[in-house]
């Protein structure tokens, strides 16, 4: 792997940038691997990278039905945060946030992680109290949090309507200064390049059509490019977790839903932090290209289609305009959808399964992107040791039967409500 640096940039500039090597290979699948990861998004590629780097396992294939990073890794709103109240969640996401802080150096790939802060808005006095409590919980668990008053929020986001007669008046906000955004495609590319350099085979356009299981042990997978044997198979397929689990004869505590996101036309810098509102339910930031990136609720019905419907787009846009009236003159440039696997308690599942050697990583609901490095780190540990890492034992599949749900919002077993 050619190391990216100011020197390699200068050297390649002298030859007109015509001699950059490919960032990763496109190998033919081998008949057998030690580990197969299904899904070449951030989570899957990161898992392969940490299996190689932390656990010395390099005979790995990452299988991808489409193109690398073409699923939810390239479809989210790029927000990175670790602002959870439940200890089980906060310790995990804080670990993930720490990995984000060193990711560009570790991968030698600029993922453009920008710690511009993430602000959750409070619209009632009760919500301010709840945020104070959550912020304290975050600090106690080793993370960072600051409670802001409306004047402090106004100073950070001048275009935000903080007036008393706003439709949803802003009473305060919880800021996580170390939160922010990252270049979402860059994360997949960075992990792909670093994993490939350690010998991992990334095989695109290779859809898994079946799992080979004998005597309760996984032995390989069937794909559109033939059968491939493996002693261990891990899936990191975002919204398609339920579909893959069906191949192993499992029903999961998951429903797949479509979540839309959208961007405005690019404008000059006007919002240098991330603003979210749980009450209005929308989240907005500005990309480095100047587009305002927005998202909101699910479409609220089961879907495996990577597109949604107009009522939700109208809903998200009206929420944004309620909060930022001056954005009403902007035109919407693009909208898209991704398939979320909504779990029954709103928390992910990173777990062994009843099938030996078959591991699942899913149930990410709205929040898979920020978890990418942490998820990959603990999933690699789980696969390598056949035991969960201390940070993902709580995300075991059996928790739903054992009554140990991690329900951050107390919404109960209604997947769309988390």
């Amino acid at each position, binding site marked *: 792997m050619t190391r990216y640096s100011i020197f390699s940039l200068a050297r390649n500039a002298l030859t007109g940038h015509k001699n950059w090597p490919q960032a990763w290979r496109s190998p033919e699948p081998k008949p057998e691997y030690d580990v197969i990861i299904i899904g070449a998004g951030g989570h899957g590629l990161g898992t392969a990278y940490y299996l190689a780097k932390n656990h010395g396992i390099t005979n790995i294939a990452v299988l991808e039905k489409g193109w690398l990073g073409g699923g939810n890794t390239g479809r989210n709103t790029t927000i990175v945060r670790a602002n959870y109240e439940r200890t089980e969640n906060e310790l995990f996401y804080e670990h993930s946030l720490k990995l984000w802080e060193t990711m560009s150096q570790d991968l030698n790939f600029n993922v453009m992680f920008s710690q511009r802060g993430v602000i959750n808005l409070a619209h009632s006095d009760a919500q301010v109290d709840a945020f104070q409590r959550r912020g304290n919980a975050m600090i106690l668990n080793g993370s960072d949090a600051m409670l802001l008053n409306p004047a402090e929020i106004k100073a950070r986001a001048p275009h935000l309507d903080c007036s008393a007669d706003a439709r949803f008046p802003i009473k305060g906000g919880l800021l996580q200064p170390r939160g922010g955004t990252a270049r979402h495609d860059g994360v997949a590319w960075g992990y792909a390049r670093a994993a490939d350099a350690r010998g991992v085979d990334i095989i695109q356009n290779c859809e898994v059509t079946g799992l080979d299981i004998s005597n309760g042990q996984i032995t390989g997978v069937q794909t559109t490019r033939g059968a491939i044997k493996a002693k261990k198979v891990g899936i990191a397929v975002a919204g398609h977790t339920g579909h893959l689990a069906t191949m192993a004869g499992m029903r999961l505590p998951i429903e797949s839903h479509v979540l839309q996101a959208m961007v405005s036309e690019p404008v000059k810098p006007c919002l240098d932090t991330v603003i979210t509102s749980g009450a209005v339910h929308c989240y907005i930031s500005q990309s480095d290209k100047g587009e305002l990136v927005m998202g909101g609720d699910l479409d609220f019905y*089961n879907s495996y289609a990577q597109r949604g419907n107009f009522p939700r787009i109208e809903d998200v846009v009206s929420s944004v305009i309620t909060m930022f009236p001056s954005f009403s003159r902007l035109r919407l440039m693009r909208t898209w959808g991704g398939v979320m696997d909504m779990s029954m308690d709103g928390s992910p599942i990173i777990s062994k399964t009843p099938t030996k050697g078959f591991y699942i990583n899913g149930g990410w609901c709205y929040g898979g992107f920020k978890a990418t490095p942490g998820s990959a780190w603990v999933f690699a540990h789980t696969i390598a040791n056949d035991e969960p890492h201390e940070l993902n034992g709580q995300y075991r599949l059996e928790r739903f039967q054992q009554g140990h749900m991690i329900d951050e919002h107390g919404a109960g077993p*209604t997947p769309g409500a988390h």
Partner: protein
Amino acid sequence: MLEIKCPWCGPRAQTEFSYAGDATLTRPSLDTATETEWYEHVYLRGNPRGPHDELWHHAAGCRRFVKVRRDVTTHEIIATAGPHEHLGGGGK
């Protein structure tokens, strides 16, 4: 926008309805069901990629539940019926 044909009101916009989830589940008997049966009923879903039978509540209309068979890969609505009626078309 989905257009859902309510058996009582005719074709109506999706925004008149709220989604009530998987229509294939049968509530276990209060008297005899085991904990495992309750777990399966409350938490586990088939979540098929293809035709999906689901319930929609006509909240801003007749306020009755409507059973809908919809292909979740295309959002095409294949059939609708009352909540206890059988749907046409091939699904599960």
